[in-house]
């Protein structure tokens, strides 16, 4: 089995005007999706990420802080899953709850080193 990372990209929830009821429903979908993958034995790891963004960049190691609410394609979180191939992960990604908010799942294969 290969491993793939699903990186969740989209606007921070605080910027998209969701009522508490809508957020509750959305979180329910996240829970259900994680549960489904766990029960299928394919979930390897995952986290939601705090919206504060710090970047360290370039030869001077310059530090910049940005509010997540300013960033359109904010990394909101990720899951790492086991799957046969990319198409299988595209299938898994159909349950991502935030397509309606214009969210994106980026799918990347984990590189394996023959060491």
């Amino acid at each position, binding site marked *: 089995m290969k*491993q793939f990372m699903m990186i969740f990209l989209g606007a921070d929830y605080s910027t998209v005007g969701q009522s508490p009821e809508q957020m509750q429903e959305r979180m329910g979908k996240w*829970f259900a999706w994680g549960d489904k993958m766990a029960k299928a034995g394919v979930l390897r790891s995952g*986290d*939601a*990420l705090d919206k504060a963004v710090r*970047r360290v*960049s370039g030869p001077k190691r310059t530090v910049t802080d940005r509010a997540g609410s300013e960033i359109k394609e904010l990394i909101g979180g990720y899951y790492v899953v086991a799957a046969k191939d990319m198409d299988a992960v595209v299938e898994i990604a159909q349950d991502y709850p935030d*397509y309606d908010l214009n*969210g994106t799942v980026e799918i990347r294969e984990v590189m394996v080193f023959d060491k």
Partner: protein
Amino acid sequence: MKLEKALGIWPGALLPIKQNHPMKEFMLFFIFEDLAALEKANQAEMNGGNGCFSWIEKLEGKYVGGNALRPEGKRVSGKDRVVTDRAGSEIKEMIGGYFLVKAKDLEEVTRSVQEGFWEFDSGATVEIREVMAMES
């Protein structure tokens, strides 16, 4: 367990809860300017560069995990779930890999990143994000 943390989170609805242990977890995304820069960095590591290994050694017990990611991939996007291929010289800001590390606070992990990440001189960026955790 990290799975429970991932499932139990409602961003914004709960304040981060003080944890039993003093360490926080941070995701470090290694971002390259474009595909060429990413491939050059991968080549360097495959040709015996040990930047990655050296930093993992320095981190000791604070290194939780990490992976390099193959450059090609797909995106599934928006209401219509449009699937696009991702690999090409036109793509800017490619995530080449990540570490998951423990640190006391943002300042500590920033210092670690400044001292440890091995591709700053070629223009790469590390994005530091705190993992949202709930008391289990």
